[in-house]
C-alpha cells in the first residue's frame, strides 16, 4: 500500500546515501582500533593534543582552565591542539574521544568527570593513545590513562581565611551550582578556612541548582548582600552573574578555577588558578618517553598546580598578604589541613 511505497522509496534513498557516503568518506571509515597506526599524517614533530570538555572553552571556569593550561604548554613546546567543547551530552563526548583516538592523537584529554565511564571502555581499544581524564582520581588500572584532579579546597581554605579577615560584617556569601564535585570541594574548603580564621564568621552557602542560570546567580548574590554579606565568592560558569552584583555593590570577590580579575577589576581580591600545565607537562614528557600513563596527578599548593593570583589593582593590606603566605606555607608543609576529604 501507500505506506509501503513511501517506505521503499525512502529506504532506497537511504541506501543510496550510505553508498555515496562510503564512497567519498574520509579515512574515518573503518578504523576500529586502528589507533596510532599512521592513519593520519602528523605534521612534523608537533605533539598532537585533543581536548574534549563539557562547557565552552572560554567560560572563565572549568573548561577554560584546561584550555589555558594547554595554551601555556604550547609556549614551551610545539603542539597542535584540537578542541571539542560544549559536549555536555556524555555519549557525544564519548564519540568525540573515540574519534580523536582513532585519528591517532598523541594525547586525548577528557576534561569532565562524567567522561570517565565511557573512557573506561574506550581507552583499552587504543593502547597506543595516551588519555588524560579529569577531574578524577581513578585510572582504571590502565597503562594509557592518567587522571588529574585538584585539591581546590586548599587554595579555597586560604582565600576563605582572607575573606574572614576582610569581612567587617563577618558575613560571607558563597554562590554554588550543585553540591557535587569540584564545586563542593571549593565551597567546603572556603567555608572551613573562613571559620578556622575567625569562628564568629557567618558563612552562607546557596547552591542555585544550575550551571548556566546567570540571573539566579545574580539574585543569590543580591540576597546575600541584602542579608548583610560583605564578601562574596562562588564557582562555575554562572558565577558571572554574582561577580556582576559584586562589582555593582563594591563587594570583594574571590575567584576559582581561572583568574577572574577581568570579571571585576575593582573588586576581585584574588583567584585560585588551576595550573593544569604542571600535570600536562608531566604526562606529555612521559608520553614522549613511551610512558602513556597510569598515574593519578593532583594539583596542590605544594606542587604549585594551585596558585593564588592576586589582583594588583585591589589594595590588599600587606598583613593579609602575609597571612596568605603563612597559610600556604602551612598547608604545603602539612601543619595545616583543610579538613576536607
Amino acid at each position, binding site marked *: 500500500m*501507500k*505506506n509501503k*511505497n*513511501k*517506505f521503499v*522509496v*525512502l*529506504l532506497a*534513498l*537511504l541506501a543510496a*546515501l*550510505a553508498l*555515496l*557516503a*562510503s564512497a*567519498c*568518506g*574520509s579515512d*574515518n*571509515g*573503518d578504523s*576500529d582500533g586502528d589507533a596510532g597506526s599512521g592513519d593520519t599524517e602528523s605534521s612534523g614533530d608537533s605533539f598532537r593534543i585533543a581536548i574534549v570538555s*563539557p562547557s*565552552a572553552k572560554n567560560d572563565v571556569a572549568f573548561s577554560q582552565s584546561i584550555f589555558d593550561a594547554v595554551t601555556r604548554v604550547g609556549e614551551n613546546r610545539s603542539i597542535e591542539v*584540537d*578542541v*571539542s567543547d*560544549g*559536549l*555536555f*551530552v*556524555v*555519549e*557525544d563526548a564519548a*564519540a*568525540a574521544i573515540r*574519534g*580523536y583516538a582513532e585519528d591517532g592523537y598523541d594525547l586525548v584529554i577528557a576534561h*569532565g*568527570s*562524567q567522561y570517565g*565511564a*565511557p573512557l*573506561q*571502555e*574506550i581507552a583499552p581499544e587504543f593502547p597506543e593513545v595516551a588519555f588524560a581524564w579529569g*577531574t*578524577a*582520581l581513578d585510572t582504571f588500572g590502565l597503562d594509557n590513562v592518567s587522571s588529574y584532579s585538584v585539591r581546590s579546597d586548599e587554595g579555597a581554605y586560604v582565600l576563605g581565611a582572607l575573606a574572614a579577615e576582610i569581612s567587617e560584617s563577618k558575613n560571607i556569601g558563597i554562590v554554588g551550582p*550543585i*553540591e*557535587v*564535585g*569540584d564545586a*563542593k*570541594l571549593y565551597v567546603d574548603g572556603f567555608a572551613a578556612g573562613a571559620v578556622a580564621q575567625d569562628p564568629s564568621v557567618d558563612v552562607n552557602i546557596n547552591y542555585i*541548582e*544550575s*550551571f548556566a542560570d546567570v540571573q539566579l546567580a545574580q539574585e543569590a548574590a543580591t540576597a546575600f548582600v541584602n542579608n548583610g554579606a560583605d564578601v562574596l565568592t562562588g564557582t562555575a560558569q554562572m558565577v558571572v552573574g554574582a561577580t556582576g552584583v559584586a562589582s555593582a555593590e563594591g563587594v570583594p570577590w574571590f575567584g576559582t578555577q581561572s583568574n577572574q580579575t577581568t570579571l571585576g577589576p575593582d573588586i576581585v581580591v584574588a583567584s585560585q588558578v588551576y595550573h593544569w600545565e604542571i600535570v600536562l607537562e608531566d604526562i606529555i614528557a612521559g608520553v614522549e618517553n613511551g610512558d602513556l600513563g597510569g598515574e593519578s596527578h593532583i594539583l596542590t599548593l605544594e606542587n604549585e598546580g594551585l596558585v593564588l593570583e592576586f589582583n594588583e589593582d585591589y589594595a590588599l593590606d600587606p598583613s593579609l598578604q602575609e597571612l596568605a603566605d603563612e597559610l600556604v606555607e602551612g598547608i604545603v608543609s602539612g601543619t595545616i589541613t583543610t579538613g576536607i*576529604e
Partner: protein
Amino acid sequence: MTKEVSAEADSNDARPWIGSWLMGAVVPLAAVLAAFAVGAIFLAAFGANPLEGYAAMVSGGFGGGSEISATLVKAMPLMLVAVGISIAFRAGVINIGGEGQILAGAILSTAVALIIPGTPRVVLLPLLVVAGALGGAIWGAIPGGLKAYAGVNEILSTIMMNIIAAHFLSFLLQGWMIEDGPIKIQQTERLTENSDLPLLPGASRLHLGVLIAVLVAVVGYVILFRTTLGVRLRAVGHNPHASRYAGMPVERSIVQALALSGACAGIAGAMLVFGSESHRLVGEGGASAFTQSAGFNGIVTALFGGLHPLWSIPASFLFGGMLTGGIEMQRTVQVPSALIIALNGVVVVFVVGSFRLKRMLEVRVEQSAKAKGA
C-alpha cells in the same frame, strides 16, 4: 496544530500514487540541502571549509559500519519518542513532555536495577523495559489527567513536568542514587551487568535497544491503526466534540494517549541508561546531558515521519545521522559545537518549512497524472 498535521497525515495515507511519494521525499531533501547551503555560509565565516565539513558529516553519520552503528544508537531514543509523539498528536494532544518522560523512565528502571541487581538478565531486562515504560507512562498520564479532568492545558503541564523531572533527577543524583567516592559526580555506580543491553552480533556498540525501538515502532503502528483503541484515539484527535456525542470516552482517551506517549519516551530513557557505554545513569551537567534533548528532537522526528510510527524509523535514522555526523564535522573542521546546534535548528526550520511546498507539489503532480489518465 495536531488536528492540522494529523488531518494531513491521514489524507496522505489515503493517497494512491508512488510518484507523489517520490516528490514527498525529494522536497525535504532539497530543503536539507538548502539549509546546508546556509550552514556553509556559517562554516566559511568561521574559517572552515564547508565541503570538508559536510563530507565529514555525511561520512561521520553514514560512512561505514561503526558510523552507522553510532547513528542507529543515536536514532534509538528519537525513534521511541517519535512513536509516542505520533500517538499523542494524532489523539489531539500536544506532548512537549518528552524530556521529563524520558527521565521518569530512566529513573524508575535504574531504581529497579539498583534494588534487585541479582536478578538474572533474562528476567531483568524485560523488567527494566517495563519499568521504563511505566515510569514514562505515569509521567505522561499526570498531564493527561490534568487536561482531561482539570482542564489544564497540556503544553503548560508537560513543560512544568519536564522541569520537575530534571530537578528530581538532580536530587536523586545528589543523594540516594549517587555513586560513592571521593569526588562526587552526579552519576550512579556502574549498574549490574545483568542489566547491560546485549550488543548485537558483529557490531561494536549497536545494542538491543535499537531493536526494541523498532519493535515499539511496529507495536505503535499496530495500536494506532489496527486496534479499536487507536481508532478511538484518532477519532478523538480529529473531532473531540463529535466523538463525545458518539459516546466515546474522551477524557479516558486523552489520558491513555499521553500515557502511551510517555511510555514510549520512558522506554527510551531506560534504553539510554542500559545501553550507554558507561552503564550508569549520568546526570552530570544537567538533565539534557542524559536525554540528549531527545524529548525535543523526537518531536521533530515525528513530524518528519508524518506522525506515522513506522516512518519514524527512517526519519530517526536520518536525523540521527545528522546529529552523529555533526560531531564528526565539528571535530574535523574545528568549529565551535554551537555552530552544529545552530545548523540543526536551520535544518529543522527549512525542512518543516518545505512541507507545504511538498504538499503543493504532490497535489500538482497528482493532478497532472489524473489529467493524463483522464
